[in-house]
């Protein structure tokens, strides 16, 4: 690309933005201009070179949203650093020119976590994809943030170890992004989410310092800063390296598909399994809508007349898994399962998991757009929330299918719509709000693994008190005092206290609205 030509083109447009400076809100925190000058672009290009800098409108459009397609905002420039030194230089340039920036992995976030609110610089970390070290004896690996999740497990193939967090998007999502959102996945029921596997983080602070917290020996004598960092949704800095635990492969698996004629029976089985004190490696539910789409896509042999199926996996010692599988089979049948199939071969198991993990991909067969929600309820409230979702679906005339981590009570109702239809978009947002509101009412949360992003900011006041949010805002300021890093994310205050001008200077847009 010809970035300097484009820069001069942009320079003409910036006269408009420059005049906007007079409207900026003066606050206690530093003012961020969000003015991209040609000088600034030249500085960025000097760091990464023209080949790793995008600033033309057509190229930037690709980065206007992540997996949450309802809200969009185009960055002013995208850069692709290849190492931590380049990230430091980019962030320092942003600080010097008072420009906001947002880190981005693969853009698979489902809550607008890497939406460039107010524009500015997007730091795409996909070229930092080295697996720096694998230490089997000490059970850790060191990776750059752009390493695709599944590639670490692939690199470990044959060693007897794997990387346990396995989001459904693991074939595309990056470990840096996983750190930002504290990602989960089907097997986190037994093995925990990302924070349980991160022992250290190296990151570039919003002031441009390269900082390491934790490492191979954990946190040492200090605070658990890496525990705090995980899940901060890019608001604390840009991750440049991660120390992750690697986990021994279980000696044996038993993977089952339990088939039910009613959703209520299915949820009862979930409750009975957990209530019996059994913690399977995974316990996933898929309803009739999603099973139909999956069957069409993968031809697994799912029963199309079933109302729901449970994908259940137990793992551990060969001597123990059969007994666990038998107990679960009995509990399912006692709860009304029509049939419980045991996966007979490794190929069958792999296909079953492929179906589950690519479920979102199969949704394209059902509608042009979809919105995946991420509510959580106490495990025993799963029957109640599923009944509520069915009622909301009917009331708003929005088709909703369900594929989710039943064992954790982590729901993923998928609302099907056409983003070109403004009226449908409004109904989807209303339905989503009602479902997430009900999750809160039932003692749960609005996000189990996708993050707050921009999508769920309005719920933070319902989940937390004003003081809770003030304390969190103070914590953000300890890392990111002027809000330059990932503005408009996670905290409602982040979009209102000192950063409103960012949005005004560079308004985003909602799908069809």
């Amino acid at each position: 690309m010809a970035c300097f030509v484009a820069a001069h083109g942009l320079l003409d447009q910036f006269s408009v933005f420059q005049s906007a400076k007079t409207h900026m809100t003066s606050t206690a925190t530093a003012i961020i201009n969000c003015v991209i000058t040609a000088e600034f672009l030249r500085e960025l290009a000097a760091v990464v070179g023209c080949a790793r800098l995008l600033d033309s409108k057509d190229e930037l459009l690709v980065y206007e949203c992540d997996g949450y397609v309802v809200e969009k905002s185009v960055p002013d420039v995208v850069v692709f650093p290849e190492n931590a030194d380049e990230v430091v230089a980019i962030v320092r340039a942003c600080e010097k020119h008072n420009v906001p920036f947002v880190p981005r992995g693969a853009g698979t976030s489902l809550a607008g976590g890497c939406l460039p609110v107010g524009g500015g610089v997007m730091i795409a970390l996909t070229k930092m994809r080295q697996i720096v070290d694998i230490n089997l004896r000490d059970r850790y690996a060191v990776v750059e943030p752009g390493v695709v999740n599944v590639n670490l497990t692939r690199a470990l193939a044959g060693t007897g170890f794997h990387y346990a967090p396995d989001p459904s998007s693991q074939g595309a999502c990056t470990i840096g992004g996983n750190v930002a959102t504290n990602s989960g996945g089907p097997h986190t029921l037994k093995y925990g989410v990302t924070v349980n596997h991160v022992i250290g983080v190296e990151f570039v602070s919003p002031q441009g310092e390269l900082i390491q917290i934790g490492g191979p020996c954990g946190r040492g004598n200090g605070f658990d800063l890496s525990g705090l960092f995980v899940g901060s949704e890019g608001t604390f800095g840009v991750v440049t390296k991660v120390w992750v635990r690697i986990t021994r492969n279980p000696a044996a698996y038993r993977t089952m598909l339990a088939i039910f004629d009613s959703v209520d029976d299915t949820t009862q089985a979930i409750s009975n399994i957990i209530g019996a004190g059994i913690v399977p490696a995974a316990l996933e539910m898929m309803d009739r809508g999603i099973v139909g789409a999956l069957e069409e896509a993968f031809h697994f042999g799912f029963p199309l007349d079933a109302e729901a199926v449970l994908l259940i996996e137990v793992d551990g010692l060969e001597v123990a898994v059969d007994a666990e599988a038998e107990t679960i089979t009995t509990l399912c049948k006692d709860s009304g399962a029509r049939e419980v199939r045991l996966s007979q071969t490794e190929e069958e198991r792999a296909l079953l998991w492929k179906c589950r993990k690519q479920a979102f991909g199969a949704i394209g067969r059902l509608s042009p757009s979809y919105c995946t929600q991420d509510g959580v309820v106490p495990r025993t409230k799963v029957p109640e929330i599923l009944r509520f979702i069915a009622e909301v679906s009917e009331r708003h005339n929005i088709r909703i299918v369900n594929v989710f981590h039943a064992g954790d009570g982590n729901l993923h109702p998928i609302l099907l719509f056409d983003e070109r239809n403004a009226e449908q978009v409004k109904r989807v947002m209303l339905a989503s709000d009602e479902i997430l509101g009900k999750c809160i009412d039932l003692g749960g949360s609005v996000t189990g693994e996708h993050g707050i992003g921009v999508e769920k900011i309005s719920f933070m006041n319902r989940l937390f008190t004003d003081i809770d949010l003030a304390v969190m805002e103070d914590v953000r300021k300890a890392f990111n005092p002027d809000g330059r890093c990932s503005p408009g994310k996670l905290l409602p205050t982040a979009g209102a206290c000192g950063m409103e001008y960012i949005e005004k200077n560079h308004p985003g847009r909602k799908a069809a609205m």
Partner: protein
Amino acid sequence: MNDVYSEQVLMPASTEEVSRLLRAETAGEGQFTTSRVSCSGRESSSAAVRRVDLQKMNSVVDYPARDMTVTVQSGMAVSELTRILAEEKQQLPIDEFDRSISVGALVAGDIAGPRQYGYGTLRDYVIGIEAVDGQGRIFHAGGRVVKNVAGYDLCRLMVGSRGSLGVLTQVTFKLKPLPEYSMLRCFRFDGSAAFEDSLGRLNVSAASPLLLDFEFASEAPVQPQVDNPGTVGRHFPHALHIGVEGTKAACLWQIEELRNDCAGGEQFDPDDSTAAASVNQHCHSAGYNWQDDSIRIRTIPSSLVAVAAELAATGYSSQGHAGNGILFVKKENGDGRVRPICEEIVSRHGGSVSEWSVDHPAKSTDGLSVRLRSTFDPHSVFAT
């Protein structure tokens, strides 16, 4: 601790009362103006320090057993929590050495024992907190569901903060089922090469030990038992204690595997011995208690034997959690020589050295920690 500071103990009965105490402290009003407050119940203290004792805040707030979570006030004794959970065949799998310790002190101290190898530590179990910061602000983080990423994870920040960021008043844990059966075996080694080989094999064992503890003596250890004739006349300076759990059949199968993994050693306790120590006994023995006069070294597991051997060469025995790379060295009678030796050894192998009574997270001097400390405790009311 109560005896030492009995005249200075504050015993609030509610979170709001804790908040009032701290606001008064902050505002410089009332009777607390000149004092500073410690809250973990285990802090070393100067004469000016008063302690917030939460023993009146000892209730179960919510225990939906079928959801496998529990919310309790932090003044509850851990032994009481253990008893309540056992009634539902559940557990918080964290080993405490002081049965009277409170839930708040457990979390603030990030207490962890032998089973951290298999179960992890408190950062893996705390899913929600309520706390009061140094300005008297009552704040919450996390929630009561097992999976929740809404807001910053202040739960992890509070775990192990030793009361320097706030007074924990309520904690929500996720729980584990109690195992059906467990077994503990001890293997002893007469040379460090065989000991290290076994640790390497155990790292990839077909068994899944939940604890993997070691002892590494500086000189000849206790005499071998006479009922184990194979050991007579030999010295065994190194030992491994290995615990497994599951069904009885799974435990027995794992013990067989462990025998293969520890082929270079001698099994110390016969399988059929009723005297064999239990996992429970081992996890509550005092030998691995960092809060006494021990120095703790954290290194990577592959460096453990080298570190232990260098310590032994300077006359110091060590023990600890081999699977986690954690060693404890006794600091007898205020021995001032041992810490510099530990630091010198660790400087070559990597890791950290700490003493409970000396090292404190609030003493961290990096900018982030200082700013966080200032955020939560701007008036330095919490003792460190």
